[in-house]
Structures are given as structure tokens and as C-alpha cells.
């Protein structure tokens, strides 16, 4: 009985897996190469949603050994979540455009180039 249910779910889960993989490939292909490092930090933090699985196991642990394993896992995942989102934010804050003064100069140059036309 349990097996039947698991296999019915398998088809749905497989569908989700395949669609999400294709979607992921399309999304990632459009990510600017500038941002590949923060992207990796971010997707890693996202996959730490495995902490949710840890919580579910933690809701009905059979013995202390399971409790220890899950607590270690939750700690590892929580470390990834905290440092993953924080470092992604920190890296992204470093990316800046040319500062306004230089920008103006650039625009003037561009203006000078285009006005003769």
C-alpha cells in the first residue's frame, strides 16, 4: 500500500523535478556572467531548504541517535542559510556603476560623438 502511494507520487515528483531542471537551465543561462559567483552562493543557500526535511524528521525522532544526526544536519544547513544569503548580499553590494562625475564625463563624450550626426 505504502509502495503504491510512493510510486504514484513518483510520477508527479519526477515531473516536478524535470520541469524545475529545465526551468533552472533556462533561468541560469540568462544570468549575467558578472554574477556567477553570487549566483552560486545564492543557489546554494536556496538548496539549504533541505533544513525543512530536517524539521520533518525532527518532529518524530525514533531515538536519540536520529535526534543527534538531525540536529547536526540542521546546524549545517542553518550555517549555509545564514552565510549564503549574507555573502550574496555583500558581494552584490560591491557591484556599482561608474560614479556620477565620471558618468557625466562619459555622457559628454558620447554627446560629442553623436551630435555631428
Amino acid at each position: 500500500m505504502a509502495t503504491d502511494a510512493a510510486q504514484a507520487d513518483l510520477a508527479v515528483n519526477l515531473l516536478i523535478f524535470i520541469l524545475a531542471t529545465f526551468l533552472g537551465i533556462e533561468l541560469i543561462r540568462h544570468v549575467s556572467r558578472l554574477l556567477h559567483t553570487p549566483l552560486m552562493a545564492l543557489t546554494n543557500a536556496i538548496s539549504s531548504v533541505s533544513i525543512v526535511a530536517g524539521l520533518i524528521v525532527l518532529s518524530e525522532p525514533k531515538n536519540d541517535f536520529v535526534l543527534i544526526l538531525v540536529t547536526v544536519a540542521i546546524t549545517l544547513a542553518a550555517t549555509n542559510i545564514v552565510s549564503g544569503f549574507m555573502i550574496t548580499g555583500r558581494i552584490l553590494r560591491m557591484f556599482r556603476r561608474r560614479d556620477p562625475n565620471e558618468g557625466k564625463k562619459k555622457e559628454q563624450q558620447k554627446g560629442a560623438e553623436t551630435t555631428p550626426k
Partner: protein
Amino acid sequence: MNDVLVSYLYVISVILFVLSLRWMSEVKTAQRGNWAAASGLAIAIIGTLLAYYIQRVDLLAAGFVIGALIGSPIALRLPMTAVPQRTAMSHAFGSMAVALIGASEYYNRGASIDAFTLSVLSAEMILGFLTFTGSIIAFAKLQGLIPGNPLIYPGRVYISLSTLAIAIVLGIYFVLNPGDSIILPIMAGFAMLFGFLLVMAIGGADMPTVIAILNAYAGLSAAGLGFVLDNKVLIVAGSLDGSSGFILAVIMSQAMNRSFLNVLFGGVGAKIAKSDEPKGGQGARQVTGFTVEDVATILDNARTVIFVPGYGLAVSQAQHVVKELADVMQSRDIDVKYAIHPVAGRMPGHMNVLLAEAQVPYDELWEMDKVNPLFPETDVAIVVGANDVTNPAARTKADSPLYGMPILDVDKAKTVVFIKRSMNPGFSGMDNELFYLPNTMMVFGDAKRVLTDLLAALKKS
């Protein structure tokens, strides 16, 4: 009731994860993407806490407190040169977490677990445990704790593949004999041994690809855990992470003109040791060194300059001097760009981050495909700490190991200034044709010192 609620909260999480990657596509919206992903994760956690009654909230809180205590100082203080190490470590943590949750799911259900679930569980654990040790070794190599060169010994491919085969056979036996719980740690041990051997055999130059592949594995094992627990948000998050790692690995290996399998089992270092012979012949060719004053004279008359930074730039911490140099040039109306090869640095996109840290505006950072057509109109190309990615042999010499690798067409610039510590070849062990071109000026010395001297010379003139 709560079961229904949590399903809908998971739907919101998934939407936020997808939007987050969408927003990561450009710098303008990337910060929003980060917040979206963090909110999605928070919603998934809150939803789970609502649906499942957790007695030991103290353990959960302890996990978060310890996680924050370890995670936040790393995130706040880590130098940008060390970001690849942190990434390797986060793959190790993530895959270990997934493997341990998988193991605890088995110990919870015991022998009553059905064969299908146990087979997915075994596969997920093998993947998780091998990614764990593989990432630890990648970390140790990047951090310089162990030598970066590949560990080569006869028959290593067969030895490492047989450890994987043993782990898989144990996994199959385990599925057939679910009560035999002693199998689990042995299987985990062989998987970890495989991950260890796999990455030990890979050289430092291949680290960008290796990190991306380990990223894909970590994501895939998380998705596997989602199958085991029938948790859809985990399946989606794992597949997004896995496909991201996969795409980045493809980009990295294309940029080095190698296949995945070649990176994993090729052992670049080994091939190079054999192809040493052309070096002797070229030893006869003489290279003249130029001074920074010579370079300053050339720069005085330049209108367009492209910097070509490689990891050597980061090693000598010269990004900031490059930025100062660029500022001086820009104040003299010289157009400055940076040409970024996809494998510049030690993980995908690393060089962009290093230069952004030095406050180089990102619109001056140019991808290889976009900057290559500009070299023929460029007065001076300054190569700092890069080598193989500028070697014209990749275009012309069919017998070169670099042949076919996409390179930056530095040689087409009117003048090439090549700053180099010594005449040692790059990672590939190949001599660089660029050194002998008539339009190349070699300047020998530590990148940071040469650039600092150049800055002084330029200010004087």
C-alpha cells in the same frame, strides 16, 4: 488544515525561488533576488513549523544559533579572494546535511522502509557523502592546506571508479536487505573515499569546473532527498541548484575546451608533464624585458587601454593598484576596459567580484565575446597575472594542448604589455607565443610592485 496551508506556503516559496533566479540575471535587480530567495526560505521553514509539531524546539534553536555564529562572521569578514573556499565549504555542509537527514530518515523508519524509497535514499546518500569529501578536498586545495597539483598514480581511474562501484553495489544490497543497518555506514565510507580520490586527482587550474560540478551534485542530492520525503519544495530547490551547477560547469569546461569527463578523469597535470619537449627548443628564443618607464611612455600616447587580469593579479593583491592606475588614465581621457575570461579566477565569475571589490565599476568589465572584436582598435593591452588565456597558440597551433580553447585576442592590440614574475609557463605548461611578438613588451616582476612603479612613472610624466 495545516497540511493544506503548508502546501500553499510551499507554492509561495517555489514562486519566490524562481523569481529570485530571474532577478539574478542582472545587477540592477540581483539584490531583490537575494531577498526573494531568503523570504522564500523563511516561508518554507515557517510553513513546516506550522504543519509539524516539533517537541525539541531547543535543538532547532541551538542549530540556528550555532549556524549563525559560524555563518555570519564568515560572511561578513571573508576576503573576496577566499570566496571559492567558502563556496566549496558550503557545498560540503549542504551535501552533508542532506546525507545525514537521509540517514536519519532510514534509522527512523527502519526495516519497514519500502524498496523504492530506500533505493532513492541510497543514491542520495552516496551522492551526498561523495560531494562532502570532494568539497572538503577542493576547500583544502583552494586554501593551500594541501598541494594543488593533481595526485597521479598508475590505475587511479580504475581505483577510484571501483570505490564508487563498491558503494553502488552496497547500495543495491542494502535495498534488498533493508534490515542490515550496518551497510549504511560502510556504503557512506566508500562514497566518501570516492569523493576524496576524485578531487585529489584534479589540479588547481580545474577548480572552477570542479566547484561547479560539486554544486550540481549537492543540488541533485537535495532533490533526491525531496523524492524520499515527498517534499516538493525541496525537489524544486534542489533541481534549481543542480541545474545551476550544471550550466556553470558546462560554461567553465567550454572555456577551457575540455569535456566534463576530461576534467574529472583527465588529470591535466599528467598530460603536461609529457608534452614538455617543445619548451627546450624555445628556450633559445630571447625575450627582452622593458622597464615601467618604457611602458609609461607608450601609455602617454594611448587613447584606449584594456586590462587583462588573471588570478595572479589577485594573488599579489594588485586589484586596487590596477584601479588607481585606471583612475589616472581615465582622468587623462584614456578609455579603460577590463577583459574577463570565463575562467579568470578560481570559481565562475570570481574575477568580476575581485575587481568589483576594488571598486571597478561593473560596466567596465567586458566578457570575452564582447571584448575580443575591440582588441584590434586598442592601443595598449595590459596583461596582469594571466597567461594561458592569452596564448595565440590556442588559435593557430593544432598540436598545442591549448588548441581550440577560446582565448582573449590580446595579440591583436597595437601594443601588449605583459607583466610577469618570470618566464615560467602557465598552468598548462605551455610556452606563450605572445612573449615573442614584436608588439609585446615584457615587464618582469611582482604584479603589484610593477603596477605601483608604473603608477608612479605615469604620474611623473
